[in-house]
């Protein structure tokens, strides 16, 4: 039983991490209508910048605080140089250009930081484990991730749905020309949103770095999962991204933990041992296909797209 609870918490933590990546993506995609494949590259840069700063400043938390605005600036630059000219083009052009950007950023990271990746040390108070009850033990750091993820989710939800800025962002997504003709500096607004998206991606990368490490290619493995999350949730919906991220985090974790046991109930142990990993690797795609087969717009499509 306690294993089950731990796995629930692990799933929650994975889901929130996914949400951080997906939220920036859904912000830029759902709101600016810009498909940014290079979101993963920003995630990687966040991790690397933070890793470097951790050694320079001697403390992980300080590094995160300094790295956040830097990734924001990086996002700002990407918006200026690449994204801006592409808003009015179709998605395919955006996909192609940002794919090019991935190649550039990955190679740049390789040139700057080398291929080996950087392991990020945590300050002592985050290194230990917290005993919740009896044998419910969780690494302290994972709790920090849970807290950060929840805070970011709340903040974003409020920003997009309940502020005038949020309204303008949504309005701009559907009709830039009109927003501009009604007196709003839409370019600036879009730059800011893009930078915010980059910061969210960067933050996720920074939080992951102490668990895995800052690594070339880390962005490319997360980006597809992040897309799956926002698709399952419904593009442009913060609520959808949040719930889908949790759902996928939980299903993935629980699938990895219990699928083989479940399979053993109705097939031979050997067959179960072989098919369980195959199925659990496919799991998120199966979920996505099922969701889309039943609800072609995702689980929580925003009221309009």
């Amino acid at each position, binding site marked *: 039983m306690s294993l089950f609870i731990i796995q629930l918490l692990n799933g929650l933590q994975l889901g929130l991490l996914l949400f951080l990546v997906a939220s920036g993506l859904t912000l830029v995609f759902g709101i600016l209508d810009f498909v940014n494949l290079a979101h993963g590259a920003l995630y990687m840069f966040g991790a690397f910048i933070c890793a470097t700063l951790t050694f320079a400043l001697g403390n992980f938390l300080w590094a995160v605080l300094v790295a956040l605005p830097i990734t924001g600036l990086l996002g700002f630059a990407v918006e200026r140089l690449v994204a801006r000219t592409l808003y009015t083009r179709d998605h395919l052009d955006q996909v192609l250009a940002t794919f090019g950007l991935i190649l550039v950023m990955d190679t740049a990271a390789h040139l700057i930081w080398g291929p080996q990746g950087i392991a990020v040390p945590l300050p002592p108070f985050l290194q230990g484990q917290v005993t919740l009850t009896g044998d419910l033990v969780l690494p302290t750091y994972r709790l920090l991730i849970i807290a950060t993820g929840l805070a970011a989710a709340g903040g974003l939800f409020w920003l997009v749905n309940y502020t005038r800025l949020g309204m303008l962002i949504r309005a701009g997504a559907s009709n830039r020309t009109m927003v501009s003709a009604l007196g709003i500096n839409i370019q600036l607004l879009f730059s800011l949103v893009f930078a915010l998206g980059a910061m969210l991606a960067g933050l996720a990368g920074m939080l992951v770095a102490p668990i895995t490490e800052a690594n070339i290619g880390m962005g490319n493995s997360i980006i597809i999962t992040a897309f799956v999350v926002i698709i399952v949730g419904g593009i442009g919906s913060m609520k959808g991204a949040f719930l889908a991220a949790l759902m996928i985090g939980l299903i993935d974790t629980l699938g990895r933990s219990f699928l083989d046991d479940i399979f053993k109930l109705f097939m031979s142990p050997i067959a179960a041992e072989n098919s369980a990993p195959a199925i659990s690797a496919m799991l998120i795609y199966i979920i996505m296909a099922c969701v889309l087969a039943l609800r*072609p717009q995702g689980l929580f499509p925003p009221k309009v797209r």
Partner: protein
Amino acid sequence: MSGRGGLTIAVMVLLAALPPVFYWTGNPFYLDLATRLVILAIAAVSLNLILGYGGLVSFGHAAYVGLGAYAVGIPAHHWLYGGLESLGLATVSGYVQFPLAIAVTALFALVTGLVCLRTKGVYFIMITMAFAQMIFYLIVSIEEYGGDDGLVIDTRSELGLLNLDNPLQLFGLAYVSLLVAMLLVRMIVNSRFGMVVQGAKNNPERMATMGFNTYAFRLVAYVISGAMAGYAGALLGNFTTFISPEMMDWSRSGELMFMVILGGAATTVGPVLGAIVFIVLEQALSTITIYWHLPFGLLLMGVVLFVRGGLAGMLSRNKDR
């Protein structure tokens, strides 16, 4: 003749002439390169049918290529190591393998298309990718066919008088196939069927009001495209003599997409041009530096940012002036 018609002919003539010249002048490697290029161009042409003309951005097209290749590899494997004789699938006959590749991919397109085509836009992109990934992991988990280690095709398809072990003949087959594929797609898109598919790209609601069941038309286009990609896959299997799930990875599907867009979506010559530029650049840059992704990425971005309508658009525009 319009600028683009001239461009198409020029490209195709060059593509036919250069590779054999390389071969005879002692550069067999460049003939190989051209064969791979032409085969991928077939896949890109097939993708262009649904992506360029139909607006159906399939992000799982590499899966069809891969399935086509496995339709060659699996029978060849059983022919060597036994099994499946009862189904007649332990064979190296191209007359079985190629139709099998087409049939399997058409069926896969039909089944997944039924589901995928209910969705639109980016949802479609992602669900096609999801199905491709499922096939990917499925093959990875089948140890009999090498799992993720892949499968070596020890014997190429036997096709009557053609000897596919001869690189020139293999190139010839691929080249003719490409020509046929281009003509086929051209014919389809200009036909009444093609007009419906193109109309449905922009405004399916209007098309329905006119009386077209757009779902059925798109499904047929999707199946045709998938089957053509499967055929390309069968050729690719014969060419590389080694197949692995890796060739179905989403990044491979992405590359096919890029060939189409780079060259110019919804044009006859675009996908071919895209394949040429993509492969040649990849080859040329990677011999210069292992950091070739950097200039390559910059070039991709440059093309998108500054050249609208892909290379075909740019080249034929200049000619028109």
